Structure formats: C-alpha cells, structure tokens
C-alpha cells in the first residue's frame, strides 16, 4: 500500500469516486433531494471525494484533504446554487457527505463503550479536526461569496 505511487492508485481513486457519486445520489433519495438536483449533487460529491483521495495520498493528512476537498465542494455548490436559484445547502449537505466524520464519531463512542479510552480519544480528536476543517472551508467560501452582496438573501 505504502509503496504505491499516485499513478498506480488512479484506477482505485476513480472507482472510489464513482462510489461516492452513486452514494451521494442514493443518499439524496433519503434526504428528499429534489430530482432535478440529484445529478449535480452527485457530481459535487464524487469530485469532492476524488480531491480528498488525491490530497490524502499526497499529504497523508485527513484534515488537510477534508479542507481542500470541502473548499472545492463549497465552491461548486455555490456556483450550482446561483445557476439553479436553489439554496446552497441543497448541494452542500449532499456534497460533503463522503468526507464528514460520521464513521469517526461512531468509532469514538464505540471504543468509549468498549473501554478503549486511547482509541476513543484518537477518534474524538480526528472527528474534531475533520469536522473543523470542513466547517472552516465551507465558512470561508460562504464569506467569500457573501462579499459585496447588498444584504440580499443568503443563497
């Protein structure tokens, strides 16, 4: 695994991004995402996960990968939102799904129940770092797109 270069990872990255695309579209059905936005939300999620995997491979840092991929996800969400006159949340919630630390929160609490405090702490810190990175990226892009708006409605 460690010896693999980025080039050899390409097929794997593509397959996993396809998985993210389809997973986000399926999750859209659970979140009642309107049909007309399904494909766009899937694309946001898939591309975001691709960036996540590439950055994670290069920098070996989950929070860094989450930050950069969320920057892109948030940027794309804002652009789609303007284009389709929809609230940003519609694309954003779906788009950040693959990278949000749901599994880490679960593992943190799971190891707490299992009395494995060290592992629990590790996952807690990871959850906070990744959620913080995503939230900061989203907040940053939000602020950027709100510059120069005349107190209009938030998109």
């Amino acid at each position: 695994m460690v010896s693999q270069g980025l080039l050899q990872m390409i097929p794997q990255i593509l397959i996993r991004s396809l998985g993210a695309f389809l997973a986000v579209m399926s999750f859209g059905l659970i979140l009642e995402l309107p049909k007309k936005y399904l494909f766009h939300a899937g694309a946001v999620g898939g591309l975001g996960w691709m960036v996540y995997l590439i950055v994670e491979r290069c920098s070996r840092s989950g929070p860094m990968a989450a930050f950069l991929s969320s920057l892109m996800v948030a940027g794309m969400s804002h652009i789609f939102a303007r284009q389709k006159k929809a609230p940003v949340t519609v694309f954003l919630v779906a788009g950040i799904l693959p990278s949000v630390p749901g599994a880490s929160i679960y593992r943190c609490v799971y190891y707490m129940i299992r009395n494995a405090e060290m592992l629990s702490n590790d996952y807690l810190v990871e959850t906070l770092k990744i959620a913080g990175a995503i939230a900061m990226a989203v907040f940053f892009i939000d602020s950027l797109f709100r510059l120069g708006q005349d107190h209009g409605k938030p998109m």
Partner: protein
Amino acid sequence: MTREKLLVETAALAGEIMLVSGAEIYRVETTIQHILELAEGKQGENVVLSTGIYLSLDDPAGEAITVVRRVSDRSTNLNRIDLANNVSRKLCTGKLSIQEAYDQLLVIQKQEIYSPKATFLGYVGTCCFFAMLFNGKLYDCLAALLVGAGLALVMGAAKKIRLNAFCTNVIAAFFVGEAALLLQAFALTDIHRDTVIVSAIMPLVPGVVFTTAIRDTLNGDYNAGMARMVEAVVTALAIAAGVGASMSLFQMLMGGSYLW
C-alpha cells in the same frame, strides 16, 4: 386575520419548515427577517434556537404581535428547504401575495417527493456505494447491500410505529451489527466486518449534523451550535450502543473469543 398577523404567521411557518428540515440557523433567521420587513413602519425581530423560534413584530403605536414555535423532531429534508426558500424569495420580491405564500407553505410542510420504494432504494444504494467509497471489495459491497436492504425495512417499520429517534437508531444499529456478523459467520466469510458495519450505518451517523454544528458556531450562533453538537453525540451514542450490544449478543451466542 389582519395583514400583520398573517405576515407573522407566514414568517413563523417558513422558519419552522426550514428549521425542522435542518437548515442553518442564520438562513432561518434571515428568511424570517426578510418576511417581517414586508411590514412597513414596524420593528420585526426574531431569535432562532435549534429547539424553537421566537419572533415578534412591534408596532411603535400599538401592541406587538409575538409568536413562539417549539420544534421537536428534526430530520433533514432538502426539498422543503428549497421550496420554502423559493416561496419566501417570491414573497419578498412581490411575486406572491402573503395569503398565497401562506397557503403554499402549508402544502410544502407536508410534501414528500419520494415514494417508500425510492427511499428503500436510497438506503440500499447508500450502504452499498459507501462500501465502495471506503475501498471495500466486491463482497463487502454485496454484504453492505444486503444489510442496507434490511436496514431500510427496519427504518420503514420504525417510522410507521412512530418510534422516537434515539430508539430507532439503537435498534437499527443493533440490526446492522447483528446482520453483518451473521453474514460473516455463515454466508460471506471473506468480508471485512468493519467496512460493512461502517458503510451500513452511514445513513444513520450524524456527520452532517456535526459539521453544521461547527458552521453554526463559526457564524456566532453558539446556542444552536452547542445544541447540534450534543444532538450529534447522542445519535452517535445510540448507534454505538446498538452495534456494541449486537456484538456482545453475538459473542454470547457463539462463545469463545470470536471477535476480540
């Protein structure tokens, strides 16, 4: 109903729909504020917490109108956020009258766009494709798909008998854990148990809630941020308890040190 009263009701309804559907606090507050500003010469204010909405329209010459809405069950519904946002946008640009907007919001509040079948597919697809996203092998995806189908049925049944969110999560997570362990023990022996369980609980885990909590906090909505963070932790607790219980039960049934 006077025009002001109707306006306040409309603002409260729009805010309630958005808050229940999981919109960020600042979005709910600005939407309500924009609708209240349609009353000229009056001072409108609103405070939104994650569990309720307070709004008032103050008339310097007379009495103020105040409305409080308590919000209890929340579940993400992007369609309703989108539609409520659209209605308030049209109302503020004058394309809809207040009465029309109010009537449309009443319809939106109950609207569901996907049939139970589509939701079922959603659960199955989410579990299966999350296994793919987590770098699972073919068998992992297959196992996650099967577990996901069961999970969808459990969630459907829980919705039908109106079980509360905490118990639903515990039971659903228990089912996921047990199903994955049984599959590994008796049917698909080369699956990665961890990948399958984590993929199959993805429809339940509170990742988005947790991230929204931090966004609310960064926006200065500290109350809502803390409340959402607690919500995320409680949900995670329910899921972990469910999976943990399923593992203990499995351990008891199979005996020995099968799991750890």
